[in-house]
């Protein structure tokens, strides 16, 4: 709520008031206006909010997914562009919605993850129930770098009942520093993950410790 932001927002809102009077013809002009802002500041929060309003009130969806792809090519870490992708996928009248787009979007996110596994945004963009996600996690673990989100995603998957194969178990084991025996049951594996994460991400040690306390107990056979 600082001064500069308030001033920008009032101007944006006045544009909205004018655009509403002009109707759908104003759509491309308003989209171009926000594009200019993003050229200087691709994460400008209120410009994104304005752009979303324009699309919903005035239209112009046709090129939006391509625009998101362009911005992500320029900066794959742009969380606003990832958010906009989700917005377009779910709301554009031209794309068929979440069900139709899910497959290609998982591919898109995984490509981003393979390039930069430390990138928070594509990990949050994933739908977990997909074998491509398991493979992506494995690739990141094997590289032994920037594996935090890969591990936390596996933790989420274990919580959903996912049964990891031996390759994934081995990859996790190889990241452990202490040799406290082979990871046997799933809860041992999950505990391993939590202790690796507490070691790798000490600022959030309390969070990872809490995660290990929340793990489902290994089923009694």
């Amino acid at each position, binding site marked *: *709520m*600082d*001064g500069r932001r*308030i*001033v920008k*927002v*009032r101007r944006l*809102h*006045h544009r*909205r*008031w004018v655009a509403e009077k002009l109707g759908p013809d104003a759509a491309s002009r308003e989209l171009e206006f926000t594009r200019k802002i993003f050229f200087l500041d691709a*994460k400008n*929060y*209120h410009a*994104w*909010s304005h752009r*979303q*309003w324009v699309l919903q009130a005035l239209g112009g969806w046709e090129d939006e997914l391509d625009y998101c792809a362009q911005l992500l090519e320029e900066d794959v*870490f*742009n*969380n*606003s562009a990832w*958010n*906009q992708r*989700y*917005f377009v996928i*779910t*709301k554009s009248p031209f794309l068929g919605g979440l069900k139709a787009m899910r497959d290609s979007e998982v591919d898109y996110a995984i490509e981003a993850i393979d390039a930069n596994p430390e*990138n*928070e*945004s594509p990990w*949050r963009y994933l739908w977990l129930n997909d074998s491509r996600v398991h493979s992506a996690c494995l690739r990141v673990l094997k590289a032994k770098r920037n594996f935090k989100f890969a591990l936390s995603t596996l933790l989420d998957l274990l919580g959903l009942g996912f049964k990891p194969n031996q390759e994934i178990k081995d990859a996790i084991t190889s990241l452990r520093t202490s040799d406290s025996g082979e990871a046997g049951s799933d809860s041992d594996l999950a505990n391993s993950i939590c202790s690796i994460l507490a070691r790798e991400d*000490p*600022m*959030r*040690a*309390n*969070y990872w410790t*809490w995660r290990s306390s*929340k793990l489902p107990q290994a089923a009694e056979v």
Partner: protein
Amino acid sequence: MGELAGDKHVKYILSVEKKKDSFESVVMEHLRLNGAYWGLTTLDLLGKLDTVDSNEVVSWILQCQHESGGFGGNIGHDPHLLYTLSAVQVLALFDKLDVLDVNKVTDYIRALQNEDGSFSGDIWGEVDTRFSYCAICCLAILKRLDSINVEKAVRYIVSCKTLDGGFGCTPGAESHAGQIFCCVGALAITGSLHHIDKDLLGWWLCERQVKSGGLNGRPEKLADVCYSWWVLSSLIMIDRVHWIDKEKLIKFILDCQDTENGGISDRPNDAVDIFHTYFGVAGLSLLEYPGLKATDPAYALPVDVVNRIFFGRCST
């Protein structure tokens, strides 16, 4: 680790209040009421509110009131919910809420609620969950929350929840720590925190802590002292503040001080301003830094002020 240069910050704030022709004053002219809230609340947290002439401030605030009942950012400026909240908060600091015609202010605020439960900031109609917070916080302080449709207001806020458990300014908008504070605060005040997935949101919030120990407001953005308030107060309201490294955050905030001339900046070695001075001190208060009054995370006012509003004078 450094120390909080409390006396220097007091001097800095008092000097900004007085220098009406300084660059900072001119730039802040249209939101002077917000500036008053930031400066005066900081003084109170540092135990130095009595260094200001309360009558002068109260009289100026009342001059900022529009005939509609709302408050503008300065004398003669158009009313807006943002300034109306600051006005009510500052009056609460001085225990001068009784100077208000509560009906007038209430009528101004409730007229800004829309059909879908959202709030516009002013008559021009911009909708944003920040304004939901302003309306709800303000009316709660005035004990007139029942004058709006709380259920619809809550429903609108919940519609602004994102996939990662956070909140944006409108439905579909990106999660942003400032918006999250507003939504969580509004839900807290209306007793509606059960709508939040606290574990999911808590994780998103604690992921805002970066290597330097500071907090950012969204993934891959720079740390900024103001998020010490918005992320921290949100974490406290959902009982997850132990998920961040408090010591590292304290160090980051202290590093953002200008220990010679007073004031706090957004990140180390930048220019200071009143806005970041408030959020830095308020953040330290939430982290229980010694020598500071406790702050209420939802109302963004000292706890003793909030207690006075809701429970009358306390003997503590």
